[in-house]
């Protein structure tokens, strides 16, 4: 009988249940998505630049697990809040407490299992779709990645069944513990959060210490290695939650105590809203901050690896383009690019060798990348202007001086003479010797571009045509020219697996972050409706109510974003041993995040408005 009653009432609350299902489902599918990578050791080891990647993913599973536990407990407590009143009513009508507790347990577990089934299907679909999209974008084969991976499936099912079992027990226990009256009155009670100054002080102090230790571990990851990762995890997660638990209630209380602020316009209401559901808020905001840190961190690491390719490729080449015997098409292609410097050098070649004209080289010595004493690494340097001898050779030919230091690099690396001409000897001749050489005169163009990575398709074409030119010179198949572009392609081949993982996880975490905030909003909006209607009755203008909504949600969005971004910025230090400049172009993922987050904030406000403010008003 009670079961039947509760089924009908579940049908009545269909909309709220949908919200709950949505929240749980996203969490499950993201967890699964993460596990498709984490469990697939073969794929990870084959495709990552980070040696202990499997271990990193183990820790990742653990972090995600903790965040999920917080989130699922919050989500299922929403179920409890939905049903309390009605369960209380059954009890006033004579239902036994034991029955009610059982009912709550069954319901929570049932909703959880339903979400699990949908979530896994969705998770497989998402993994497949996002992986395909990224692989296509990155031009990455990703052999071994499987969207439907049995061990990921197993771990997801086990984890969530256990978690739902636990939350069901907790829900049942919480119902069982409450008196009929407090069940009936549920929804009006305010979460009591104690905010004594001393508590806040120690809470904040502890969280700052925890986070500081975690930051230290991340910055010194190269020495601490795996222990550092564990230490950072064990300190930053509790530190983050603690900072929300201790600081947030205090901050809101402080704001409320400021009478000038609190008693102006609708501020008392806005702040009251924030204070009202503080317990839930602390959990949600802590979770959101962690998800932002993970998502944005993974994304930033991915893009940072990507930009790192460009930096590494530039490490050995000061010039971007080398064109031997440029033909019309090549010249035109070069003309379409933003060229900052361009020089032509004459040379002659015959079967024995290649002879560069010294005067041309001296007139405009090509820049090379040279390691300078005392500096961080390689930097562009111009070879000393004069070459005193009349004849030089690139490799020690008998009786001919070898090219000195930077000039050697200029001819071999920047001009790439070695790979272009195969077995021929390479010389630099002064005017008179050059004239005597019996051979065809040609010229080579060396150019620097403003932004190398902006012209990858064009560079690919040039590389291909230069390769075929090299094949006519050498008479052999040429795999790689060894210029900046081919270096870039090779490096990208190494890094794309890591980039793929970063962006894949970034998307997953940010999606979960969005769903957590959305869930928080939708689950509490229902209870807010009557408050807004009451304000309307006493004569608050709609514009004022809308402003209050914008402000309340702005604060909710702001706090976790700040904490999350600081985590990311410090966390990028972890990659400094493998990425040359981890902060290069960090503004790209950051801007992307702000734009998406901003749009998301705006949509959230609109949805919330639609729920709490009736249209005609």
């Amino acid at each position, binding site marked *: 009988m009670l079961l039947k009653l509760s089924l009908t009432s579940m049908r009545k609350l269909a909309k709220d249940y949908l919200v709950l299902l949505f929240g749980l489902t996203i969490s499950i599918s993201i967890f699964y998505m993460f596990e498709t990578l984490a469990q697939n050791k073969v794929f990870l080891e084959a495709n990552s630049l980070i040696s202990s990647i499997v271990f990193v993913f183990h820790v990742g599973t653990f972090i995600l697990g903790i965040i999920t536990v917080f989130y699922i407990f919050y989500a299922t407590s929403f179920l409890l809040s939905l049903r309390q009143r009605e369960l209380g009513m059954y009890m006033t009508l004579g239902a036994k407490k034991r029955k009610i507790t059982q009912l709550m347990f069954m319901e929570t577990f049932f909703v959880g299992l339903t979400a699990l089934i949908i979530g896994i299907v969705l998770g497989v679909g998402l993994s497949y779709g996002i992986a395909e999209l990224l692989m296509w974008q990155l031009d990455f084969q990703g052999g071994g990645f499987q969207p439907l991976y049995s061990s990921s499936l197993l771990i997801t099912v086990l984890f969530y069944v256990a978690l739902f079992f636990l939350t069901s027990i907790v829900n049942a226990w919480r119902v069982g513990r409450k008196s009929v009256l407090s069940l009936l*009155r549920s929804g*009006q*009670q*305010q979460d009591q959060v104690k905010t004594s100054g001393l508590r806040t002080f120690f809470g904040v102090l502890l969280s700052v210490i925890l986070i500081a230790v975690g930051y230290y571990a991340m910055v010194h990851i190269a020495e601490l290695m795996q222990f550092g990762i564990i230490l950072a995890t064990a300190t930053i997660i509790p530190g983050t939650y603690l900072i929300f638990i201790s600081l947030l209630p205090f901050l809101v209380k402080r704001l409320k105590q400021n*009478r*000038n602020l*609190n*008693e*102006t*316009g*609708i*501020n*008392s*209401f806005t702040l*009251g*809203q924030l*204070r*009202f559901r503080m317990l839930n808020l602390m959990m949600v905001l802590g979770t959101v901050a962690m998800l932002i840190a993970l998502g944005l961190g993974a994304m930033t690491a991915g893009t940072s690896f990507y930009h790192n390719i460009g930096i590494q490729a530039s490490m050995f080449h000061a010039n971007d383009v080398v064109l031997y015997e440029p033909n019309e098409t090549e010249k035109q292609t070069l003309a379409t690019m933003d060229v900052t410097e361009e020089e032509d050098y004459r040379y002659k070649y015959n079967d024995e060798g290649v002879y560069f004209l010294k005067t041309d080289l001296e007139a405009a010595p090509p820049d090379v990348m040279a390691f300078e004493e005392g500096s961080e690494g390689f930097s562009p340097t111009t070879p000393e202007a004069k070459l005193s001898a009349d004849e030089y050779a690139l490799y020690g030919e008998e009786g001919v001086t070898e090219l000195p230091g930077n000039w050697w690099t200029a001819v071999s690396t920047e001009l790439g003479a070695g790979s272009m001409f195969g077995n021929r000897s390479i010389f630099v001749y002064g005017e008179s010797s050059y004239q005597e050489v019996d051979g065809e005169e040609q010229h080579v163009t060396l150019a620097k571009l403003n932004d190398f990575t902006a012209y990858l398709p064009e560079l690919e074409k040039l590389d291909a045509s230069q390769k075929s030119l090299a094949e006519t010179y050498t008479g052999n198949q040429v795999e790689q020219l060894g210029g900046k572009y081919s270096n870039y392609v090779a490096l990208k081949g190494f890094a794309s697996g890591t980039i793929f993982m970063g962006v894949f996880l970034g998307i997953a975490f940010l999606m979960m972050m969005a769903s957590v905030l959305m869930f928080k909003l939708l689950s509490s909006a229902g209870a807010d409706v009557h*408050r807004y209607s*009451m*304000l*309307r*009755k*006493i*004569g*608050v*203008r*709609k*514009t*004022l109510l809308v402003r209050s909504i914008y402000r309340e949600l702005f604060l909710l969005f702001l706090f976790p974003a700040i904490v999350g971004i600081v985590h990311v910025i410090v966390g990028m230090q972890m990659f400094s041993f493998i990425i040359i400049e981890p902060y290069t172009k960090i503004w790209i993922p950051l801007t992307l995040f702000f734009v998406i987050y901003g749009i998301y904030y705006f949509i959230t406000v609109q949805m919330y408005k639609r729920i709490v403010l009736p249209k005609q*008003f």
Partner: protein
Amino acid sequence: MKQSVLDVHQLNKIYGKKSEKQFHALNSVSFAMAEGEFVGVMGPSGAGKTTLLNVISTLDTATNGSVKIAGTDITAMKQGQLADFRSSQLGFIFQDFNLLENLTVYENIALPLSLQSVAVRNIKPAVESVATKLGIEAILNKYPVTISGGQKQRVAAARALVHEPALILADEPTGALDSKNARSLMETMVHLNENHGTSIMLVTHDPLSASYCERILFIQDGKLYKEIHRNSTRSAFHQDILDVLAQFASPDMD
């Protein structure tokens, strides 16, 4: 003759669009209320009392007819203006208290003042003075869930009064109270009415509560049906009210 605070003229309210089934909830209702008057509205369930109050309080719009409050015709106002008008000229007390449970009693009472941008230094004295009038100064820092029904209704009354509106509208304020609390609230309203000149319009089912008024309007099926004045003692007036209500129960006797 005192100036009239409320002037209702040929008021009609029809629910439902032209195409749908229509319901005539108010049918050519006209009456006036002088400043400082305490008027009760009674009638059987579904008679249109709440509808009348909602139209007067600008929460609902009339189909036609006019409503003037303190000289201003509200039927011609726009939504934004109506909101401002409500917040400055009207005070509400509803049956289900309608306190904001996320604010303390103090904050609830202060809200209308904050909304009207009253200077912060003037808010506290105003709240404290109205709280003293209503005997709730001891619970100002509590939250609504922790106070009794009678106290909640006083808080609602305090909030309705704090900005000294032209007219207080109350829909069954004693509906959820026991007789002791109901009486005490009514005495407070009389006190406010007599000593502070507050104009009050009260909708009620309860004859005892109604007997505190000076005048009662009876409505039935959306029409003004009868009007009685209090001439002598409250208990005599109570009897008069009971007599009229008896006629509702068995209309043939009239």
